[in-house]
């Protein structure tokens, strides 16, 4: 089966999921992102790589943070940005997903950044756009959130450069998490030898171990000697019901506290894709503590998204690095 993310030469055409992407491409994205980290620290935070291009953020599901970071990333590349919050309203008016997309194609956008509540919806859109448009998945249902997965491994790599010698634990609601799936694929593709998931059985997908992870149901055993702890968000509606009895019990059993974190390696880092539920999945003192790299994740998110857009726009790694070190001629 042809991988819909790659063109005939094996270059990235769309970014829909980490699964099935070769290590070479992931590394290319991460290396390119390194060169963009510096851009944000300058006075003029822009490079002209996407000048004259139009990036369209199509959000069928609400989001503030992800949409904003994509918008900033596109603007720092000098692209024009259109934000479209389709929500559920236009579909309740009877417009199909393809109608919406066709309209945007007619407006000559060059790149679509799409979020949708249904797994597979972004693949569907990618199958129906003309050749000159690239699609970036900004989260589809429970399936994938590849830029989040990439920014997470980017963060890991910055703090723990030797990826081949790491133990990483993902904690929480893996079942409903597109972030977890993308993180798992990114970590395993980059050669992290041991990825663990820690969760109650109600929050783990069937056969999750076939994704290449070790399963734990006990925080103490699961966190022992890990280098990286990746917390997952627990949606409000799942805190009490048939999946979990209460937020309190969840915090007691699977919430990250300093006590439990002390079982990890002393220099372990703590990550969270946000937004956090303090006191449910993570204790405030840990979220704000010295081992937390939660805010750097956000900063790196912009560099990683810039890298993805620049590569989809056709830049070679070396030319991108060179462009990143130049400044734009102003006014862009």
């Amino acid at each position: 089966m042809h991988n819909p993310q790659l063109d005939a030469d094996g270059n990235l055409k769309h970014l829909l999921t980490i699964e099935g992407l070769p290590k070479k491409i992931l590394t290319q994205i991460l290396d390119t992102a390194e060169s963009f980290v510096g851009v944000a620290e300058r006075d003029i935070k822009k490079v002209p790589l996407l000048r004259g291009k139009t990036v369209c953020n199509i959000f069928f599901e609400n989001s503030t943070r992800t949409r904003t970071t994509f918008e900033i990333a596109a603007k720092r590349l000098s692209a024009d940005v259109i934000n479209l919050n389709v929500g559920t309203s236009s579909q309740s008016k009877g417009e199909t997903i393809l109608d919406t997309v066709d309209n945007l194609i007619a407006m000559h956008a060059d790149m679509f950044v799409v979020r949708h509540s249904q797994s597979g919806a972004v693949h569907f859109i990618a199958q129906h756009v003309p050749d000159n448009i690239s699609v970036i998945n900004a989260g589809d249902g429970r399936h994938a959130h590849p830029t989040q997965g990439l920014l997470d491994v980017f963060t890991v790599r910055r703090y723990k450069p030797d990826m081949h010698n790491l133990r990483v634990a993902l904690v929480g609601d893996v079942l409903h998490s597109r972030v977890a799936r993308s993180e798992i694929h990114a970590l395993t593709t980059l050669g992290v030898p041991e990825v663990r998931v820690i969760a109650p059985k109600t929050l783990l997908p069937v056969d999750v171990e076939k994704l290449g992870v070790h399963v734990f149901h006990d925080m103490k055993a699961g966190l022992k000697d890990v280098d990286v702890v990746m917390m997952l968000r627990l949606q409000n509606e799942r805190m009490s019901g048939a999946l979990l009895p209460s937020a309190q019990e969840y915090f007691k059993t699977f919430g990250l506290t300093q006590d439990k974190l002390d079982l990890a390696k002393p220099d372990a880092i703590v990550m969270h894709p946000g937004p956090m539920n303090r006191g449910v999945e993570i204790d405030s003192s840990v979220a704000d503590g010295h081992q937390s790299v939660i805010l750097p994740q956000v900063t790196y998110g912009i560099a990683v998204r810039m890298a993805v857009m620049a590569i989809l726009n056709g830049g070679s790694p070396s030319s991108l690095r060179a462009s990143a070190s130049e400044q734009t001629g102003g006014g862009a």
Partner: protein
Amino acid sequence: MKIHIKSGHLIDPKNNIDSKQDVFIAAGKIAGIGKALDGFVANQTIDARGLIVSPGFVDLSARLREPGSEYKATLKSELQAALAGGVTSLACPPDTDPVLDEPGLVEMLKHRAKQLNLAHVYPLGALTRKLEGKLLTEMCELTQAGCVGFSQADNAITDTQILWRAFEYAATFGYTIFLRAEDYYLAQNGVAHDGEIASRLGLKGIPAAAEGLAIASILRIAQETKTKIHLCRLSTAEGVELVRQAKKQGVQVSADVSTQHCHLTDHDIGYFNAYANLKPPLRSARDKAALCQGLKDGTIDAICSDHTPVDDDAKLLPFTEAEAGASALELLLPLTLKWATENKASMFESIAKITSQPASILAISGGDLSVNADADIAIFNPNTEWKVSASQLKSQGKNTPFLGLSMIGKVQYTLLHGQVAYQS
């Protein structure tokens, strides 16, 4: 009109015929097998050299979409598709709009089908009103109107008390109940087999146990109430095993599998291919193997198309939002032959699965070529290779996961009431 089908290889499982025999037809009936009656002069001779002559196929489930969803398909389009696929008799499930729960609707459907004169239509009536699983339908009246059994289509009866009563009532009159076994709660919102693929794709799964649980309850109640049960569209290894055991214990149960489930697994969802969104969901390779084996050893009695034409507006959607179902009438023969080839079953065994066996489950005439039976006949070339394309399908539904694939086996002639009703 007298027709002489000459030099074909006749396969008629019910009469245990598997040899080169000529078939003679007069006045819409089979007038002779092997040799003609004295004085038989044919108006038409069909040269069947190198071809297989078989009873017209009997399909246990084909949705015709009338009444209510004529934008998806019409009786005319789908019955033409049936003839192109060699299908001369088919049962249609009651999940039309409105539901087939009133005698008037069934009479209308039978009447429309008869006027079209394209294939025999045998409606399955709704077991409960509006298929809601609450109130029984007028089963005697519906039977008089033409229903050959009762079904819930894809809707489960969650209340076991009502299920028990429905079985008892149907058993009073000896009616057969056709059920697709799936636990309502475990299947809720599910769109794929609960396994590695669903986990990777982030799709809500339906565990295989959803089928096993439902079959266990159905069989237990059927045993208590002495009801004739037909289990529709088995999809799991555990389902096959439960049926195998029940048959050994003498429960009156039969079962079918769809052509899709004999050949595809959840891997075929690929990158969210909505054509692979089916009910029941495509399951694991192990389940598929058990289904194929179950067919071979007789646990599963019949293969059906489970034909479900879906319009583009309902299929051109993300996987989870697309309407389930595949257009399949025209692929019934080649996919049945493919099962035979892959499982070392004979042509004779495979033809029985789509002729005599389903006819016996529906308790209808048809599915055999006995002398004086209706001359409903399929004549096909078992070696013709062809490619499935949207333009070639007669069905209004072009939604098949086999699109673009090669098929082996093609119907050349379909005869209905002793007349050539389709010729390729």
